[in-house]
């Protein structure tokens, strides 16, 4: 009974009790050990399945994963002690499974991309540490939204520059400097979400309230439509000039969601959807890459050697429990190591494994959204919601694409797909989410909040 009384006391704090939320660092450590274990097990399993032997570097592999886990954990303990304890273990598990699958495809294709990916993971970890140390309070990110927006747009345009820009598989989204390739749109994704959040915090009142009502929808004023039009045009620009569908969907989608969250007006979603449909129609008519992908989506078996058909064959071959790591034929799926890694995992881990992976992503997104709900400052709320829903959109677009739910568009599977720029920038994104969740779970300061809170200036809606 004393236990129950104790719980009662915790649930209903009295005034003289200051409730300190559990930091969860111990939980995080235990979950991290699981993540390292799962990653190592997957890696060993690949060799056992494909070659019938335990890889010689199994211990070294486990060691390096463990090192990454411990370093990240210690940095969080120092710089973000209240951070959500589930985020890092999820990310590490996803990285580990992705790395195991890349290693598995290395065996099939006689390449060594896994070690490159592991190196990039270390670079990502370094940036993760850097972000957590440099950005002590996420609100400093809100200071220069227009500068951030400009930076984001420049990053988007970089691949079009002569000399440094180049295209791979028809998509002009790469830059190459001194033998190093990088996709600047992966960085632009994060910079632009920061810019949106800052911009929306400044202008949301005008966006939310001014305008007229038309057939039941509150339409914004024409001049407030500017930002959404700019982003829409930017999205269409990426689509047409760089011939890449994924980033434009992601960019426009997260912007519309953020503007809706900021203004609480459903009309923005409706407007956004209409513009999306219009853009999609125009893209279908005029953009080289869109129509074939749409046709392929509808009739994947016209040419059974294509990606979608092979991905479906792989998923079907895996069935409910999968072939087991190393025992399927994921190398038959074109570019299985990057865009189609979801299908490759679905083949060897089956419906069960792929479901687990999707649920891991869902859990990660839900942790981000939870931070958004709890955070007290509007910028933080918007940023967390934007990052989390952007991640969700990306996962949906790429996994939906490889499983023929929606037309395929080039996006990487976060944390799993081969690709340095994507992996590194996703670690930055996670650092920001850790920072935001730390702010959300940190006990409220006892003095008056320094930042203008929602409640201080009430906007009165007149209509």
């Amino acid at each position, binding site marked *: 009974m004393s236990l129950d009384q104790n719980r009662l006391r915790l649930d209903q704090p009295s005034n003289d009790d200051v409730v300190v939320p559990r930091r969860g660092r111990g939980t995080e450590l235990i979950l991290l050990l699981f993540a390292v274990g799962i990653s190592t097990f997957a890696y060993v399993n690949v060799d056992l399945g494909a070659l019938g032997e335990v890889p010689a570097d199994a211990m070294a592999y486990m060691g390096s994963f463990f090192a990454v886990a411990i370093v990240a954990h210690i940095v969080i303990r120092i710089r973000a002690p209240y951070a959500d304890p589930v985020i890092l273990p999820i990310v590490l598990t996803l990285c580990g499974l992705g790395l195991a699958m890349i290693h598995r495809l290395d065996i099939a294709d006689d390449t060594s991309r896994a070690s490159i990916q592991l190196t990039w993971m270390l670079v990502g970890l370094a940036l993760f540490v850097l972000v957590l140390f440099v950005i002590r309070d996420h609100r400093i990110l809100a200071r220069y939204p227009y500068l951030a927006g400009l930076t984001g747009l420049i990053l988007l345009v970089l691949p079009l520059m002569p000399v440094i820009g180049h295209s791979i598989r028809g998509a002009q989204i790469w830059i190459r400097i001194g033998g190093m390739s990088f996709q600047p749109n992966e960085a632009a994704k994060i910079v632009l979400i920061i810019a949106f959040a800052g911009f929306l915090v400044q202008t949301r009142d005008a966006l939310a309230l001014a305008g007229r009502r038309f057939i039941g929808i509150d339409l914004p004023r024409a001049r407030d439509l500017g930002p959404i039009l700019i982003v829409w045009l930017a999205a269409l620009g990426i689509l047409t000039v760089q011939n890449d569908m994924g980033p434009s969907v992601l960019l426009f989608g997260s912007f519309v*969601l953020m503007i*809706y*969250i*900021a203004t*609480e007006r459903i009309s923005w979603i409706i407007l956004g959807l209409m513009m999306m449909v219009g853009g999609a129609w125009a893209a279908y008519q005029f953009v080289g890459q869109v129509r074939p992908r749409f046709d392929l989506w509808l009739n994947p*078996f016209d040419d*059974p050697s294509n990606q979608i*058909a*092979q991905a*479906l*064959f*792989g*998923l*079907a*071959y*895996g*069935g*409910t429990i999968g072939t087991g790591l190393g025992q399927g*034929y994921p190398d*038959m799926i074109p570019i299985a190591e990057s865009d189609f890694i979801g299908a490759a995992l*679905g083949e060897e881990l*089956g*419906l069960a494994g*792929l*479901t687990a992976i*999707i*649920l891991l*992503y*869902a859990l990660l*997104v*839900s942790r981000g*959204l939870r931070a*958004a*709900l709890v955070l007290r400052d*509007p910028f933080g*709320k*918007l940023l967390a*919601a934007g990052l*989390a*829903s952007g991640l*969700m*959109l990306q*996962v*949906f677009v790429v*996994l*939906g694409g490889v*499983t*023929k*739910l929606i037309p395929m568009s080039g996006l990487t599977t976060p944390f799993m797909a081969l690709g340095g720029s994507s992996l590194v920038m996703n670690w930055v994104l996670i650092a920001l989410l850790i920072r935001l969740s730390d702010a959300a779970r940190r006990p409220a300061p006892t003095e008056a909040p320094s930042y203008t809170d*929602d409640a201080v200036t009430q906007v009165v809606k007149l209509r």
Partner: protein
Amino acid sequence: MNSPIRRVSAGCLLLVLALLVNITYIQAFWSDELNARGDNRRVTIAEYARERGPILLADDTPVAVSTEVDGDFQFLREYPEGRLYAPITGYYSYLYQRSAIERAQNEVLSGEDDRMFVRRLIDLVTGEEPKGGAVKLTIDPAAQQAAYDGLGDNKGAVIAIDTRTGAILAMVSKPSYDPNPLASHSPSEQREAWIDIHGDADNDIPPDPDKPADNRAIAQPLPPGSIFKLVTAAAALESGDYEADSVIPGPARYQLPLSERTLPNQSGEACGSNDQTTITNAMRISCNTAFAYLGEELGDDVLRDQAERFGFNSQPLTNEDLRAATSRFPDDPDAPQTVLSAIGQFDVTATPLQMAMVSAAIANDGVLMDPYVIQELRAPDLVSTIEQTEPEELSRAISNDTARQLTEMMVEVVENGTGSNAQISGIPVAGKTGTAQSAPDRPPYAWFTSFAPADEPSVAVAVVIEEAPDTARSDIGGGRLAAPIAKAVMEAVLGV
């Protein structure tokens, strides 16, 4: 801002649910269909990496085996006596998929069958390489060889059935093809063998006009001609209005109803004195006009009903076995068409299998057994049985008494009539000849169906000769060409 964040969260949940529902659909419900697709190389490669089970004859002689070889595909499918058994085994080809038993029993042969699930689990644990199960056929090698040799260079087919069980003892179709090059691991060899048979539309290479890949024994219905008179006689006896010695008209020419045309007898003469004959005599000499009369008297509904009780208008050996064709009695013939149908012309078509089923039902006291070609399915250890075919009654085609009378008529055909070439010394044989006109510009089809011993039947045979290149056209007839083959097959089965 919390309420829109909650709504966005709900939206995210919907996206996750959409992904989960979609992959569940693909991996749990659509997967069988995707894995069965011929253009799914993944499944083929996986199959080749596993030892495919053999196809065995009734005496356990293998007619399709997998042998281990070097290369990407670890096992090579081989057919020791390719042409002889090709209509039954079919081929197993990387480029052109599979046919016949290789297709129908693919799950067992490849080891994917659900009944081998436990076995696969054990293999998984013990690290044993998974293997396929065996398919044991009902085919008797002696009967098969006799039929194959008997057909010689003629184009045609032979089928033999165990009358008491429905087990198919021989199934030969000529010309045949060699399935070995189709199973080759060399794509060019496969392609060449395929083009030899099916031609190549892209390069204007016509298909082989002899269609060697067609299984004429079960898949190609032809006009049965006079052997359909067995069905007409059965209908007459079953009606209760006729006995074997009932006297009916048998003129030289029969006036078709509602028509100026007349139907002649082959001989041009009447079948008996005063243009009258008994049914037994009409059967013995294959009298067209007498059976035409019976057809007009009985009407198309009675004939169709009798034909259907013998198995017409429904598919034997369905897609799960060998994809036999359905033999037809026309839906709605007018009066003259009914008369022509009664002697196996007009739109009546039958496969050799169907006509063997008619004989087998007569032999089996009127009970038609469901024909089958698979004796049993065996687990990958090749010893333990996972399924055994139990003989099954398909229908009671005719009464005991009708069966007895028809048997006597058929014995008369062999002993004193058109089927004398099927006589076996010391064993009574029952049979019926047929020579069916098709188009005026091509030779008639020679038919023969029989069973033996007539007093205690065990084997029924049907033979059809489509073309006999070494025989003069006027000499093509069921009695002359087809009966000796049936005799050889029956002898092989009876061991005499």
